[in-house]
């Protein structure tokens, strides 16, 4: 996305918004952790759009841990009495902040822009508290993707696996040929991402929701969960020994270079392939994670809006919310990030094949019930429950003698302790 197009887009947007009338300029302080090349540029587009509307953007970037450091800082800022205007808060944490009374209502912007028609209800629910919009979604990620290097598969004469058993067969062939079947980074959230893909495959979307959204102990402490752990252990056996601590993008790099064949990762992996100059469908393939083709595990980045005192800043904050869901920004941002827009009315013809597949699946599963929140990315439970699950899963993934029965009991106990 070159500067010219972006600036033109920003100008177009601002001239479209001007008539809605805001003569005063305000300041928005935005807390986020998009600090690397591609993401930073995507966020910069938002800044430019705000500046074009006459507002100032005060950047407050805190990288690390997928938001851990940022959340710490946010809490201290809130406690000290001056939170930022907007913060990158995800999933059920939004509800926690709203419960404590920190968030402001965006219902006026939502009404003006018709958000209820544009955003699927399952996602709108996450953005609301007691029926009022308190956060604005930025994009939608599909998490249950399998990224494949076709050239590597061709080396062992294999096809893209569509079930877990097929996956194991292909993986065995690869292992025999000395190629790493599954590229993976040994960090708790990555272990959890693979685990949830396997869980979705074994349990199916209904039981997955019962287990990870409703925390129904009957499903959590069941034979099916044991089977999930057992299959998960088998999947992890195809990961190389040096995976511990590896970053996810390094693992994607392994697939790009042909050192490994596949990776189970969300759609942000696409950004890596694009940055390497590869074309989807030819140089790399995006397929649903084995046995989850009818399901869409969603992860939504969102900005929660805090209560502010200064009127000008409140105006700027509302403009920020509006801008985020504008078609122009949605296009710019999702193209850079590899995700798909939240608006269901977007024209996807300009997007690449994987994004189009993703949007089709998104629209379809919204109706069939295969649209499930990703617990590995905080969309299904509170961060406490999520953390507890992480501990059990990562411990299991890293143990020398993984015991599915024991892990199931531990999972049940861990989740129970957090409820």
């Amino acid at each position, binding site marked *: 996305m070159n500067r010219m197009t972006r600036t033109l887009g920003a100008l177009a947007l601002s001239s479209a918004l001007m008539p809605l009338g805001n003569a005063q300029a305000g300041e928005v*302080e935005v807390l*986020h*952790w*998009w*600090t*690397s*090349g*591609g*993401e*930073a540029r995507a*966020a*910069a587009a938002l*800044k430019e759009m705000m500046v074009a509307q006459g507002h100032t*953007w*005060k*950047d*407050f*970037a*805190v*990288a*690390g*841990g*997928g938001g851990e*450091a940022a959340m*710490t*800082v946010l*809490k*201290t*800022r809130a*406690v*000290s*009495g*001056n939170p930022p205007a907007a913060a990158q808060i995800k999933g059920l944490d939004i509800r926690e902040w709203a419960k404590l009374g920190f968030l402001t209502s965006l219902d006026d912007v939502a009404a003006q822009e018709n958000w209820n028609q544009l955003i699927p209800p399952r996602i709108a629910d996450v953005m609301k508290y007691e029926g009022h919009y308190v956060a604005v979604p930025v994009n939608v990620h599909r998490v249950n993707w399998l990224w494949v290097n076709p050239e590597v598969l061709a080396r062992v004469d294999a096809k893209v696996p569509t079930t877990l058993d097929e996956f194991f067969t292909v993986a065995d062939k690869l292992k025999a040929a000395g190629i790493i079947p599954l590229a993976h980074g040994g960090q708790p959230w990555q272990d959890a991402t693979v685990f949830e893909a396997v869980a979705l495959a074994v349990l199916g979307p209904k039981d997955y929701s019962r287990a990870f959204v409703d925390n129904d102990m009957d499903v959590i402490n069941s034979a099916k969960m044991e089977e999930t752990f057992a299959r998960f252990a088998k999947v992890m056996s195809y990961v190389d020994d040096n995976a511990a601590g590896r*970053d*996810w*993008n*390094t693992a994607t*790099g392994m697939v790009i270079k042909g050192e490994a064949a596949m990776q189970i990762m969300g759609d*942000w992996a696409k*950004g*890596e392939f694009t*940055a390497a100059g590869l074309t989807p469908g030819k140089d790399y393939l995006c397929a649903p994670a084995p046995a989850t083709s009818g399901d869409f595990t969603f992860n939504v980045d969102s900005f929660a809006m805090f209560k502010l005192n200064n009127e000008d800043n409140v105006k700027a904050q509302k403009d920020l919310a509006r801008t985020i869901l504008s078609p122009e920004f949605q296009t710019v941002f999702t193209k850079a990030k590899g995700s798909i827009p939240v608006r269901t009315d977007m024209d996807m013809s300009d997007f690449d094949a994987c994004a189009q597949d993703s949007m089709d699946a998104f629209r379809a599963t919204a109706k069939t019930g295969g649209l499930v929140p990703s617990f590995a990315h905080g969309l299904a439970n509170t961060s406490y429950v999520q953390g507890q699950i992480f501990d059990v899963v990562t411990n299991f993934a890293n143990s020398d003698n993984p015991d599915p029965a024991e892990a199931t009991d531990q999972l049940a106990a861990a989740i129970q302790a957090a409820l």
Partner: protein
Amino acid sequence: MTDVVRPGFRPSRVAIYGLLLLAALVYLIPLFIMLVTSFKTPMDIRTGNLMALPTDWTTIGWTKAWSEACTGVQCEGIRGYFWNSFKMTVPAVLISTLLGAFNGYVLSKWKFKGSDLFFGMLLFGCFVPFQVVLLPMAATLGKLGLANTTAGLVLVHVIYGVAFTTLFFRNYYVAIPDALIKAARLDGAGFFTIFFRILLPMSTPIFMVSLIWQFTQIWNDFLFGVVFASGDSQPITVALNNLVNTSTGVKEYNVDMAAAMIAALPTLVVYIVAGKYFIRGLTAGSVKG
């Protein structure tokens, strides 16, 4: 003490030098790796190994780290944060050292009932993990109106640094004969007079120790910097973290290493240039245990 120890026969001297040089190597290797990596290209890093010299020496890592790398929405490198760190570190170092000097003076020469207990409690406070105090400190700073200001951050560093500076000065002043102080008091010298006329002039070595220690601790701090400063006034450690811990894209180790070196430069310079004062200061303080 060294004038008594006569160098023994050759083999043991060789052994001593051997061990010292081996240790020096172990200490130096990581620095060597950092430097060498910062001058390589990303390709070179991927294909080569840790210790190999660059096949093409390039300063692109350094220029990017200084002025082009992304630390948020802006991609201007870490150069702006350098000044922020100084603005915060220098006052904090000076204030905590001064306080420590006065405290050390009182705790060694003007003991009162409970002063040893006070000292003990001060020392115990060294062990409070900083994470524990983040929230209450944030609330307190908020009430004082100092939230998100450089002044607030300086205050925080003073609070958590004064225990160490007091320790240094107290141990140093304890070694100075009480007789000296008594004589001055008999002559009618008062509290401040003794301090400024007698103790201060001979405190240079321990001042150096305290300044060096505090400068290093405060400059290198990350946790307080990320929590209590914001946006434009963030210290360089926060910028470095944002740069290094990016979650997408190829990891550019050369930029990361160059940035780490730039961030470490002031403290390295302090240690290298002022290192001998450091030793001198520690020596002077241990004259009589």
